[in-house]
């Protein structure tokens, strides 16, 4: 035996090749994961800083109130006495009346929707989201109760589940096409709130059904059996012993689908959204007109200002400002849902 040969305990050995390869691969995996997170963070940062500059101000009231409370206007850019002036359509009209001769021969550039604010769009989006969520929640939760509490496996249920799964995969533009063909044209609603509500409600229906059913199924069987054993009817059992415990879960799923509904553009493009409309939704003659009016909506407004007007220093404000308001509203809704869910998961552990 060679006396110089010392056996080293395995723990102190240098890492084997397999170990080293492992750590390299793991680092790669970590890098690609964080790359994704970084990309998303960059988008938030870009829109957050550029849009935030439009929405927030350094001095009181710290928030650009006109942008949030006024209707979009055309922006006029002109040079007078060697100074660049920018004015919204209304202000420009007044100015023109006073300084008619000075303006003669001045070169005036106009950019549509680049002045004023996005108030009608915010209102329209809120209305669209609220209405479609009411419809979708009623239909969705009732369906989920049926699926989880009443249904016994059979051809009807199998077909039902198949429809739900397939409905979830249908592209949103096809929903838009469907809403246009059925509600706008065949049922003659016109481009209207009602058509948009129904189209979007049907679009999120599968999400709400699946998530609500999951929440209902998570309620332990013992709760139902206990109630039934005491002589309650099935309906009473559901109302007192199942729904209250499933409600938080259902709530979470509905908040998530609010984010989805608010974020979609394609289904409302031809069913509910107007490029521009002067009246606000409540300025209607009959109350029934309320349901049959088109509205301006934030996502569609972003599409319009991103494609129909050139990109330059004058239009950037409205573009980034709208994107900012929209992105962070939707993100806030989604964040609520995510936080709510983690909380609930901790709270309810059966």
């Amino acid at each position: 035996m060679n006396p110089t040969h010392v056996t080293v305990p395995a723990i102190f050995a240098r890492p084997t090749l397999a170990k080293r390869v492992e750590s390299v691969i793991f680092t790669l995996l970590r890098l690609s994961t964080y790359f994704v997170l970084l990309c998303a963070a960059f988008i938030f940062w870009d829109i957050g800083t550029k849009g935030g500059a439009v929405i927030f101000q350094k001095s009181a009231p710290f928030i650009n109130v006109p942008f949030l409370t006024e209707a979009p206007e055309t922006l006029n850019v002109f040079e007078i006495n060697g100074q660049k002036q920018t004015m919204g359509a209304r202000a420009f009209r007044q100015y023109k009346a006073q300084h008619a001769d000075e303006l003669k021969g001045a070169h005036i550039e106009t950019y549509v929707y680049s002045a004023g604010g996005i108030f009608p769009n915010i209102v329209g989006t809120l209305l669209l989201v609220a209405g479609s969520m009411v419809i979708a929640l009623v239909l969705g939760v009732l369906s989920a109760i049926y699926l989880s509490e009443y249904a016994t496996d059979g051809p009807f249920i199998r077909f039902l589940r198949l429809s739900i799964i397939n409905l979830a995969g249908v592209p949103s533009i096809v929903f838009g096409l469907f809403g246009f063909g059925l509600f706008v044209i065949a049922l003659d609603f016109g481009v209207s709130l009602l058509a948009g509500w129904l189209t979007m409600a049907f679009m999120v229906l599968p999400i709400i059904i699946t998530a609500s059913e999951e929440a209902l199924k998570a309620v332990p069987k013992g709760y139902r059996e206990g109630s039934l054993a005491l002589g309650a009817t099935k309906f009473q059992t559901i109302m007192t012993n199942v729904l209250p415990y499933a409600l938080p879960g259902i709530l979470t799923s509905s908040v998530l689908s609010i984010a989805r509904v608010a974020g979609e553009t394609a289904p409302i493009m031809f069913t509910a959204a107007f490029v521009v409309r002067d009246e606000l939704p409540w300025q209607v003659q009959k109350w029934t007109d309320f349901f049959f009016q088109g509205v301006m909506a934030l996502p569609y407004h972003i599409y319009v200002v991103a494609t129909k007007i050139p990109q330059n220093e004058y239009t950037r404000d409205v573009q980034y400002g709208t994107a900012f308001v929209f992105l962070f509203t939707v993100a806030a809704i989604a964040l609520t849902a995510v936080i709510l869910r983690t909380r609930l998961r901790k709270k309810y552990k059966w």
Partner: protein
Amino acid sequence: MLMPSLGMPAATQTPAAPRLTTQEALLRKRTGWFFGMTGDQFVKYVFQGNAAISIVVLALITFTIFRDAVGFLPQNHANLVIYRLAGLEFVDIFREQVTTHSTISRYLASAREQQRDRLTKKEGLSPAAAMAQLAVFDDFANRFSDTISDEETILGTMTDLASSLKERQTVGEDLAEGKKKLLAAKRTATPERAAELQKQADEIQIETIDFKTEIQPLLAMRPQILEANAKLLVEMNALAANVPKFPDPAFTRKLEKFQGFVQAYAGEIKTAEAKMAAWDQTKPVGRLEAFNAFAFGRKWITGSSSWQDWYGVLPLLSGSLLIAFLALLIAIPLGVAAAVYVNQVARPAEQKFIKPYIEFISAIPSVVLGFFGIAMLGETLRRVSQSPSLDWVPGFPIAERLNATTAACLLALMAIPTIFSLAEDAINNVPRSFREASLALGATRLQTMIHITVPAALSGIMAAILLGFGRVVGETMVVLLCAGNRIEIPDFSKGAGVIFQPVHTMTGIIAQEMGEVVRDSIHYRALFMIGVLLFLISLLINWLAQKIVRRYRISIG
């Protein structure tokens, strides 16, 4: 309380309701207060009815989009019949021949541009000196493009003839439509009004066009064409034989290529002539051709009512697929890697942060992503591509700010959350014991992952990828805003540079054109046809994903 009745009613008592046995009481059919239903049953049916809404909606979607789409085939058939009858098809054969000639002219022009750039930039000649060097070539190129002038004149005459014939036909159709409306209105009108309507309808003279005789002037131009073509061939061959000589070998090679083009063009003239000779106006247009023109048509040209509208889906389909392929190329590695990392490697604290974060990404509205692409990403990519150190990348520098890659990058970000959460679920569902057994046998975590966990979850990962594909193909706003919207089949002959070309997509074209089309027109129906195609693709993807999951699900236990 329930006791067997003894059957001994007291005479003084009013007859009580018959007492039931326990068994009878339990088996008794309960009749309720609402259409014979008990409250509970009624509630159940309410719930069931609601659940059936999903089936109804799916049926309604299918019905609505198919109803508006089926009309496309007969309308497109009529469209193609006129195309043949009015001789537009005949003219297009000749037009193709003329267009090829101008393509060769363009080739010469672009060769000249490159040569001029080389002379001024690499050899440092002044623009004027470069022009002087190229003067011989310019003269040559001009002589070449002049050779086609006879044909162009003939083509102009033919185009006028054919389109005026088609115009007369459309006017006739419109009049017939108007007459039909008048007659329909007559049925509900008062007698005197009806008489007036009848008079109006009678006044409408609808011209019946005898296409066979009307087309004769067009066909009579054949000898003229042959003559012009013969002249063209002679002139072209003479030119090709006397190509000016240049010292630069690269440029000479280009000119040799040009000679090859000219020879090929001579062959093309022969085939075009043969086609024109064989062209038969009376050949019926098959029913299938209307469908083929959609499914395999290479042109999507709409709104040009003067000549011919084409509704071929291939440019849009190929654009959609190209973008989806690129997006998945980015999203699959990143999404799956993130799923594996979060589930197998990450510490719990990391997990708690990354999972909600990625889920949160899926909430970014697509229109905001699209806007980001327009405002930021497209320009950035183009600026990066212009840096000289990246010249070796195929397709760089990028010509268009908005192209397939811009859209694909953003779509990848949308597909990653879908792929991530489904794949993570699948990996999570692999039984712990599999992993533990592998680790116990001395495998490292990486070996366990590669050989045990990921293969066991592979079906779920495949399904995740499929659904990610579905998400990407069906996405509208990002591609509408960022894909460049050029309706052309991507030019794959450019090699990998194809990914930087602007394309148009199926979803994009619906969103873009639906708002402007006339209801029930052929264009409107063509868009619904695309909707049907998208719908079928989504069903197919769903079906495949379910099938994969069911087929390869590992049995636990």
